[in-house]
């Protein structure tokens, strides 16, 4: 069992998850997003290779209207 904090909410996962699988789990595949893991940017090219571990803090962001 692995616990991740995603945008401030905790979620539990059975077994290993990489960033790419997490995106699919959140129904965000194909969307224009950016991800930060424990304060560090995860480049899009590393979505499959970066395996998430218990306790990871993730921020998943989009562009929204602003001034």
């Amino acid at each position, binding site marked *: 069992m692995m616990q991740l904090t*995603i*945008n*401030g*909410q905790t979620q539990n996962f059975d077994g290993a998850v990489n960033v790419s699988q997490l995106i699919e*789990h*959140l*129904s*965000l595949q194909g*969307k*224009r*997003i*950016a*991800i*930060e893991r424990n*304060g560090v*940017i*995860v*480049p*899009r090219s590393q979505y499959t290779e970066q395996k998430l571990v218990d306790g990871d803090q993730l*921020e*998943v*962001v*989009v*562009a*929204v*209207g*602003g*001034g």
Partner: protein
Amino acid sequence: MDNLVIAGKTYHSRLLVGTGKYKDFDETRTAVETSGAEIITVAIRRTNIGQNPDEPNLLDAVSPSKYTLLPNTAGCYTVDDAVRTLRLARELLDGHSLVKLEVLGDPKTLYPNMVETIKAAEILIKEDFQVMVYTSDDPIIAKQLEEIGCVAIMPLASLIGSGMGILNPWNLQIIIDNAKVPVLVDAGVGTASDAAIAMELGCDGVLMNTAIAAAQNPVLMASAMRKAVEAGREAYLAGRMAKKLYSASPSSPVSGVIASSSPNK
């Protein structure tokens, strides 16, 4: 051609607009198009995580292929939040490095914290960001921001979203006179005359959001702002006549007036 050049890139429009506070993305798109703006600010926020997978995306309404997107750090009160937000923005926008930095100091006035803003700017510039910086209208701070490498200085005219107009034209004038990088009024414009006044002072551009989005008819106001910025710029370039207190000068010939209308008979 009288173009605006920021960080080596040329723009035809001197009006920059935000994308916040519109009723929907259709209105955002139409207002932005009507404004003629080429640089469009966007905010970076947490996405919904699967609760609403069909939520429309701003970038479908204002495409990064059509506009220069300017991600901002609105809502950030610390150096760390501002820097992280812009790193995320750069990743989101495929390496795009032109950003708008603001580090706020107070939720009531949204007044910028300039000590923290300078620290954040130094970090971002070291990381090769091109930083357009929101600042108080302090000429010394503005000069410092230029000296550390900010590509544009963006002093407030009055508080963000206040629509109070140009409250201290003298400070803006000093900032403009001292600057070697573009100076853009950011925040405080309420209506078209405010934008024109900013441009007449010699500002290189004006950035606004609420003045358009909160107008009764945002699209019509976007059109007004486009014209105001153009008119103000042309008036600045044309060079206004001198102001002459108590010394009127008639526009029509003084001689040949029929006798009865002369006051000095």
